[in-house]
């Protein structure tokens, strides 16, 4: 077990902040005290805009507005708040007659927006200002006002770059937590779709939204997610990748135990399966938990296109993902230990291609694998426009050159290039990364013990996957424990069964909420298959016609 660092050595506590970095000042009824406090807290923050306005006509009625430049939508602030103050000053009549508090007066008469609220503490006030809202301190009032004016720069809803589809929606998540939750809510218009907000990180105060469907998700799962999220005190969170690594079941595993996606439709369908989504501000990747290996092989498009072709695609995905980590190892094992397994003409042609090459096969493979990993890494760093060209040229030129220089045999180039391409057929990027990693394990095992080593490596990985769990769901479900749901979950695995046959939700959902597709009550007697209504007489005719 890893030891905790000494609690006392790191602390955000000072005169004005408590242990959790919350501000311990009180809101004062004197505006001047509040102004002084804001000046202390935001000392040297030149991007803060502060302005004191007197909105009273005869009696002074001072307010003090604070917001961060660039983080607010100034149109909202100016049209719906400031302009009304100016209008009022030019009008006749008095609004200060009744017994309302100053903040209530402002909210009723000066703000033409729904999203305005009173806050009681300095901490809430400052937190709102830091998130892009505007804070209004009011003289002679023990409360402050927060107007929702968030309007920071963002890139808008774009296409999900890592999960493109030919058919299917093209909106992808952005960096703003609220936009992301909207993209999901637009797909599930149900009051039972719940959003719990927490803030993560003592300094970054990142908004984290936990979304789930109340009556489908198992309550113990939601509880588990919340509990794990509340475990750590961390200074800042910049991406859902941080959270993923802080809430997963096994940190030792190279396999992803949460599903990160840019696609709102994927998240929505996950929620409807009883999973929980974790949206993190500043990250376009939303986490879905729990996940299984099978779920990482499912792409959104699988469900939008015909089942036959998508089943074929699934088979292909499983096959190439196996090859993506196994092929180099298998090649080494067969060539070095069991050449007898290969048909004789093929073995001879490989031997002929290897003539004059000094390196052992393992070294050849390792050189080429490392080179390809290099291309991949360099391809990301090289600026966009030339990146592809350099990658292509590098691949072809270097590949051709090493073969001609007799450093590597052509077979190796084929194998390494094939495995590299194979990894891209897997829909989930994190899973691809795991396969890239375990490929080296397989190469090592095969190099030492041949096919036997390869098989033991395979058993080792399978044993690891069998013991792995994601939020108490076996990682290999529904390939194991499928009897829990009457083997129904197997309809969406290597083969994708037709949509009308997938009437049940998988094991993630509550047991009383497992049905998601059925015939309408008044048509209960009919055939489940889609198509025109069949009467009892022409049913036979139909069958005969088939």
């Amino acid at each position, binding site marked *: 077990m890893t030891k905790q660092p000494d609690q006392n050595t790191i602390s955000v506590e000072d005169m004005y902040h408590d242990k959790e970095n919350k501000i311990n000042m009180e809101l004062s009824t004197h505006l001047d005290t509040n102004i002084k406090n804001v000046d202390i807290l935001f000392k040297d923050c030149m991007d803060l805009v502060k302005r004191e306005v007197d909105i009273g006509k005869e009696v002074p009625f001072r307010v003090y507005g604070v917001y961060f430049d660039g983080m607010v939508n100034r149109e909202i602030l100016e049209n719906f708040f400031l302009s009304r103050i100016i209008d009022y000053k030019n009008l006749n009549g008095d609004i200060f007659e009744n017994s309302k508090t100053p903040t209530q007066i402002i909210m009723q008469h000066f703000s033409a927006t729904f999203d305005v609220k009173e806050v009681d503490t300095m901490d809430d006030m400052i937190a709102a200002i830091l998130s892009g809202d505007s804070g209004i301190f009011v003289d002679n009032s023990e409360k402050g006002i927060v107007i929702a004016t968030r309007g920071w720069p963002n890139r808008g809803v774009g296409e999900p770059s890592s999960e493109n589809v030919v058919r299917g929606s093209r909106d992808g998540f952005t960096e703003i937590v609220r936009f992301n939750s909207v993209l999901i809510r637009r797909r599930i218009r149900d009051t039972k779709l719940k959003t719990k907000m927490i803030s993560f990180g003592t300094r970054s105060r990142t908004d984290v939204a936990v979304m789930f469907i109340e009556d489908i998700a198992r309550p113990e799962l939601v509880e588990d997610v919340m509990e794990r999220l509340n475990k750590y005190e961390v200074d800042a969170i910049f991406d859902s990748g941080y959270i993923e690594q802080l809430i997963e079941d096994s940190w030792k595993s190279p396999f992803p135990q949460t599903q990160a996606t840019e696609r709102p439709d994927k998240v929505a369908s996950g929620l409807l399966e009883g999973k929980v989504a974790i949206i993190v501000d500043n990250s376009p990747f939303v986490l879905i938990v729990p996940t299984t290996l099978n779920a990482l092989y499912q792409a959104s498009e699988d469900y939008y296109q015909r089942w036959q072709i998508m089943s074929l695609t699934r088979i292909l995905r499983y096959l190439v993902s196996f090859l993506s980590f196994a092929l180099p190892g298998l090649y080494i094992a067969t060539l070095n230990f069991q050449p007898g397994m290969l048909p004789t003409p093929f073995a001879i042609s490989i031997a002929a291609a290897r003539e004059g090459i000094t390196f052992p096969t393992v070294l050849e493979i390792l050189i080429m694998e490392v080179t390809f990993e290099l291309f991949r890494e360099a391809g990301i760093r090289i600026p966009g426009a030339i990146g592809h060209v350099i990658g292509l040229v590098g691949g072809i030129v270097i590949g051709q050159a090493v073969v001609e220089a007799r450093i590597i045999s052509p077979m190796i180039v084929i194998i390494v290039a094939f495995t590299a391409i194979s990894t891209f057929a897997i829909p989930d990027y994190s899973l691809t990364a795991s396969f890239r990693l375990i490929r080296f394990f397989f190469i090592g095992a095969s190099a030492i013990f041949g096919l*036997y*080593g390869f*098989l033991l490596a395979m*058993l080792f990985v*399978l044993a690891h996957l*069998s013991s792995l*769990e994601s939020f108490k769901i076996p990682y*290999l479900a529904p390939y194991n424990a499928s009897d829990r749901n009457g083997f129904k979950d197997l309809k969406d695995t290597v083969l994708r069964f037709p949509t009308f046959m997938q009437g049940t939700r998988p*094991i993630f959902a509550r047991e009383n909420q497992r049905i998601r597709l059925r015939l309408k009550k008044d048509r209960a007697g009919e055939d489940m298959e889609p198509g025109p209504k069949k009467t009892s007489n022409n049913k036979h005719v139909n069958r005969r016609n088939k």
Partner: protein
Amino acid sequence: MFSHNGKVSVRQVEILLILQMFNTSILLLPRIAANHAGRNGYMLPIVALAFGIIYLFSITTLTNRFKGDTLVEFAPKIIGKPIAYCVLALFAIKIMITTGLEIRMFGEMVSQVMLPKTPIEVIILIMLLTTAYLVKSGIEATARMAEILLYFIFIPLVIVLTFIIVKADYKQLMPFFETDIVSVGKGAFVVSLSFMPIEFMLLLAGLMKKQEKTKQAIVIALITIAIIETIIIISTYAGIGVNESKRQIWPVLTLMQSIQFPGSLIENQEILMMTSWVFSIYMYISAGLYFTSLIGSRTFKFKRENVFILPIIPIIYFIAILPKSLVEAYKYYVGFQYHFGIWFLVPIPLVLIFIAKMRKVGHVNG
């Protein structure tokens, strides 16, 4: 939902039992069957089912009296702590010896087919260590692993057997029913010793979620394995002949060598078939390792069940490398099964049931 209580489902028990019974003895089976019943050896597994049912009753009658308990808990209740611990120690030793000899036979096979130059000690040791990795994760992970390996083991087997069955020479099986009853009975008993992993139920039954279905799980496993054994014996006879089956140490392996895939995609496909065997032996050894360590940790009341795995590995390893040659290993393997295989299947459970009834411990109606 998935409560982490170290319990397994009925289906998982069925699969575990099937994979554990699907061990090296199946590779030897056609030889044993041919030696006992000649060309009618294929009926031995079916007759052996009768013995299997006896084992089933002796074990389930005992375990059903003590629901939720493994042998480690109920043996002391029946015969008192000192004797119970002796019985448990004997059981652990027996499992370790069987596992050791099994892994030796397996090592010999790997050495013969895949790694002729590698020392057998290394082959055995790395297998043991790989097994330990699974076993340390507990019975739930082991059961899940079994469910996954089922696909890897039986899909290749079905494909290969299909080729054999199509091309085989079935005249080898005739004439029918020429063997006398005594040798069939004796042969069936020997074959029934391949059902020995049922003895693990003495421990496994207590780890089941629905213990009332123990019998069902065992029956399904027994019938499945008897059918597989019959198919394997028939296809070996039909594929390489009865006399050849008697001569070969691994008749099934010879059978695999004899077939030819269409299009000559792969040559020496017996290496490919080793995949199935490596995977199924893996499950057998992991069971041996798990149950021995379970006996240890529960007897000494350790909270962590996997404490004993690492100390057990060297013991099994030394048992495995003890025989000097393949011939000696084979002699020990068959001999040990023949002389000691039955003890924890029938005699000891029966004695325990008898004493339990006399002393009126456990639930009478199960």
